[in-house]
């Protein structure tokens, strides 16, 4: 159980019920994971989903790189929910099992392709030190271009925002899981 009960139409401030209804309808009343928290402020949920939609479907980054950036963020921020939601998708998108498993277990990563190494180093440096070295920045910019790197930065930043919602409100894992849990 999360730390708060599920939002209902009645629990939403009156001036935001129209936005709540709009999102409810779009999603068939289904608010999984971070959305179950964000929906308590419907306008936040709406604008967040709009940004997320572009970062997931409009960006120039390949699915493999997107999934790896979400997994790196989940690992750095200790977010079991995001890890569980994306580990299988990461494998399907072409990340080798060894990479996913070693990332999960904080073991050394070996034999990464250059685009994979660029993502992991970029995310780890920022989340661990709040900055990115010139060398790591240049490698990532060479891999993804300036537009792609902007998309990567905001994708990781957005998943870090989701992790904040999930971890602070203690959103639980779904009942059925196929992936090993992220060790915290």
């Amino acid at each position, binding site marked *: 159980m999360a*730390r*708060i009960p599920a*939002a209902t139409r009645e*629990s*939403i*401030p009156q001036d935001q019920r129209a936005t709540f209804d709009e999102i409810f309808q779009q999603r068939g009343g289904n608010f999984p994971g971070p959305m179950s*928290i*964000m929906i*308590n*402020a419907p*306008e*936040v949920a709406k*604008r*967040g989903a*709009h*940004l997320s939609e*572009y*970062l997931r479907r*409009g*960006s120039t980054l390949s699915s493999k790189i997107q999934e790896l950036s979400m997994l790196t963020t989940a690992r750095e*921020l*200790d*977010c079991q929910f995001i890890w569980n939601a994306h580990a299988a998708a990461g494998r399907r998108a072409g990340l080798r099992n060894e990479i996913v498993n070693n990332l999960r277990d904080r073991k050394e990563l070996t034999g990464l392709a250059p685009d994979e190494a660029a993502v992991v180093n*970029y995310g780890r440096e*920022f989340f661990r030190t*709040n*900055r*990115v070295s*010139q060398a790591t*920045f240049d490698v990532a*910019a060479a891999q993804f271009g*300036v*537009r792609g*790197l*902007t*998309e990567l*930065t*905001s994708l*990781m*930043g*957005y998943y*870090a*925002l*989701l*992790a*904040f*919602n999930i*971890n*602070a*409100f203690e959103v639980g894992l779904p009942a059925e899981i196929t992936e090993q849990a992220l060790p915290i």
Partner: protein
Amino acid sequence: MARTPAVKRENVPEDQRATFDEIVQSRGGVPTTGPASVLLNAPEVAKRGLDLARYLREDTSLSPKIRELAMLVTAREKDCRFIWNAHAAYARRAGLRDEIVDNLRDKKDLPRLASDETAVVNYGREFFRSHRVSQATFEAARAQFGVQGLTELTNLMGCYALLAFNVNAFGVELPAERTEEALPI
């Protein structure tokens, strides 16, 4: 100089040039500093991200003092000089005592805080430092702001951390004219 040059119209993808124009027009020119100067490399990210940030900064149920404090705590925890500089003066005007702003900046012990201020500082520090929030800190924040307000606070801090990632990774510089002491890193 930031690590990438100011965005040029011809460098953004053709299908996002209308969005580029819209943003440039609303800001009276191509932004050359701040998170917008980075986000604009992907105009749709700029538009959608700044829409979210604007709402969280201006339209939520949280008081201006609490919003500004949340941004300052995030800037301090993420070592983001740009965001610190952009919000320290606003925070003072919104009623945050100078001693609080200055000590937060300098990583000194904070003076006696009002209970809503304490709730924000503890909530942000705990998440950014340990990736979780203790039950006691969560409860104190919920009691102060309610579930809607705490959701807004969480996303305000999360969104400003996203902006800090853009600013710090791309080496965005402080504006030339400033009135606040720089955040020591």
